């Protein structure tokens, strides 16, 4: 896999300096959001399984940069990065993970089920492959209502093995729906390598069977993701149907929880080291600095600002009230207003 960030010329055509800085900001936000969880998790009062997105930040950031507030996204058990990139405030996420009534799902969903309809997140499923058809469904609704929205579904390499992947691509292609399929191929499903699950490590080529474009990109290169997603989003907005984008990446932490799993012998530590050298945040930061889009000081300021905001959020979230016990029996059904 190539290691160069897109050349500057290409970038200039792609994204304005504002966009570049905003991509940087999102990536740092996502990274630091997760690192705060690692800090607090040992206190054992964030009682929900956390699937950290560290190492994969370029994908959510690069894709969501093209989305409007009311475009829809569906994420997975590994949801934090997508929500943040789409605009969900960190405090309501942290509050959710702490099981607080101010959480984005009133504390009922936890880390795997954030909902933030105001930012186009209509809820989240942690059933692998479950969210793929849901996004096709919102895309269908948009096409029927002609509301101009598009839908994006993020899912893992594991999810591409589920029947729903096939069923969704077939239907979305036939109906030419405004939906973008983003497969985050980190080569693992829990601790199972893709070689034990698929005949080859190449998910994008499946698209052809459905008559839609399929492209594989370096998922650690935010500009490559940004470029591919931009084209896919444009196709969707123009009524030209779905696209499948496979983003090759790697997760740094264990499947679930704050620890690294390499010590347990789950995965070769050499792989982690190789991928850490290709840290999406660092690579992009270096690119921006080298090309003078940002200075070291500006970057440090940005980081500081984000950190302060996250510190405030997590502290505030932790101080929010827990739900009343009566909440247990509420919300099983929607009540007509």
């Amino acid at each position: 896999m190539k290691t160069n960030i897109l050349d500057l010329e290409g970038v200039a055509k792609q994204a304005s300096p504002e966009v570049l800085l905003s991509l940087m900001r999102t990536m740092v936000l996502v990274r630091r959001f997760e690192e705060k969880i690692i800090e607090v998790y040992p206190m054992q009062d964030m009682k929900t399984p956390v699937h950290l997105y560290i190492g994969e930040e370029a994908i959510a950031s690069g894709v969501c940069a093209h989305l409007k507030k009311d475009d829809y996204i569906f994420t997975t058990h590994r949801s934090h990065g997508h929500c943040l990139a789409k605009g969900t405030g960190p405090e309501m996420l942290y509050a959710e993970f702490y099981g607080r009534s101010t959480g984005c799902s009133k504390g009922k969903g936890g880390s795997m089920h954030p909902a933030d309809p105001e930012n186009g997140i209509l809820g989240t499923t942690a059933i692998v492959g479950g969210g793929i058809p849901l996004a096709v469904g919102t895309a269908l609704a948009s096409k029927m209502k002609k509301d101009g929205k598009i839908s994006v579904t993020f899912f893992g390499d594991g999810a591409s093995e589920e029947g729903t992947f096939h069923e969704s691509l077939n239907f979305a292609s036939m109906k030419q729906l405004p939906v973008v399929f983003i497969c985050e191929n980190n080569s693992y499903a829990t601790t199972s390598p893709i070689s034990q699950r698929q005949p080859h490590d190449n998910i994008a080529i499946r698209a052809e069977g459905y008559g839609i474009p399929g492209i594989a990109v370096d998922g650690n290169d935010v500009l490559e993701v940004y470029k591919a997603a931009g084209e896919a989003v444009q196709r969707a907005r123009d009524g030209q149907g779905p696209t499948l984008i496979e983003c090759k990446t790697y997760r740094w932490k264990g499947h679930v929880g704050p620890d690294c799993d390499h010590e347990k012998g789950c995965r070769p530590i050499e792989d982690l080291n190789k991928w850490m050298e290709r840290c999406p945040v660092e690579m992009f930061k270096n690119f921006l600095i080298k090309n003078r889009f940002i200075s070291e000081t500006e970057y440090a300021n940005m980081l500081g600002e984000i950190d302060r905001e996250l510190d405030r959020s997590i502290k505030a979230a932790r101080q929010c009230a827990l739900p009343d016990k009566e909440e247990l029996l509420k919300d099983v059904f929607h009540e007509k207003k």
Partner: protein
Amino acid sequence: MPWTKVYTEKTDLKDTLAGEGLRALSYRDALKEAQTQLLRSDESVFLLGEGVDDTGGIFGSTLGLWKEFGKDRVMDLPIAENGMTGVAIGAAMAGMKPIFVHMRMDFLPMCMDQLINHAAKWNYMTGGKVNVPLVVRSIIGRGWGSAAQHSQALHGLFMHIPGLKIAMPSTPYDAKGLLMEAVNDGNPVMFIEHRWVYDYIGYVPEEPYTVPFGKGIIRRPGKDVTVVALSVMVYEAIKAAKTLEAEGIDIEVIDPRTLNPFDDALVIESVKKTGRLVIADVACKTGGVGAEIACRVAESAHEYLKAPVRRVNFPDTPTPCSPVLEEAYYPDAGSIVKAVKELIR
């Protein structure tokens, strides 16, 4: 009242009703009328399912609707039940009101994941922020030697899943009224129809109306035994009542109309009066709806029960093909008569 009445003969009722100045419609046409009115009045409603637009039109219940509403709103589908249910759920979250139609309930195990893990839990998991106004119509009922994979009734499974409502209309009046209620309920509703009542005729007003969920109905008052009958078994129970009447046994026939919510009060009141309970269902016995109803009575009206409870069901076997075995498989009015008599001796 005409809308509570069950007509057990399929034919000639049109005239009977007309004589009373009442509009008669078959169950099939009542379903179609409900869908037509919903499609006309609400842009967010649409039908989807394998064959909804075809020349069979789901046993006639969607026949020709695509001509008025187009194939986008009466949408044929690939054969991909789980994915397509997910699509319908996604559309529902985004404000549409899909009605997903399955010609046979046997195909629902294909999409249990989207029904159980997604539709049923979504409102709760999102803290009430996002609801799923999805109606899933599915049809049960004996076929022509259709055997194990094309004759199942699985409503009992859905009763165990919090977050799913379940309607099971037995009359044309309820078919229309419950469907119109279901589509606007705002929750996932399993709407379970019986193929053998599609031809049955009853009073159905032309204007739109709804039948509320959770309100059962006494189809025939009686004092000796409470018979809770589901779907087509309501008709069999009415027939059984006639037979039993001749022997001086007076049964009360209750049609719960919806299984979730379930009208406990109606059943409990009746059992307090009769002291005896029979449940007649159209599915296998063990772990089914009958067990739940019996258990609720054992919890809330135990002291009134004068006799053991009895269930009338299919046996606990897959459905056989051979006509002799099929015949032995399905219970009818005679089975209800037999069960009632066991309690009366």
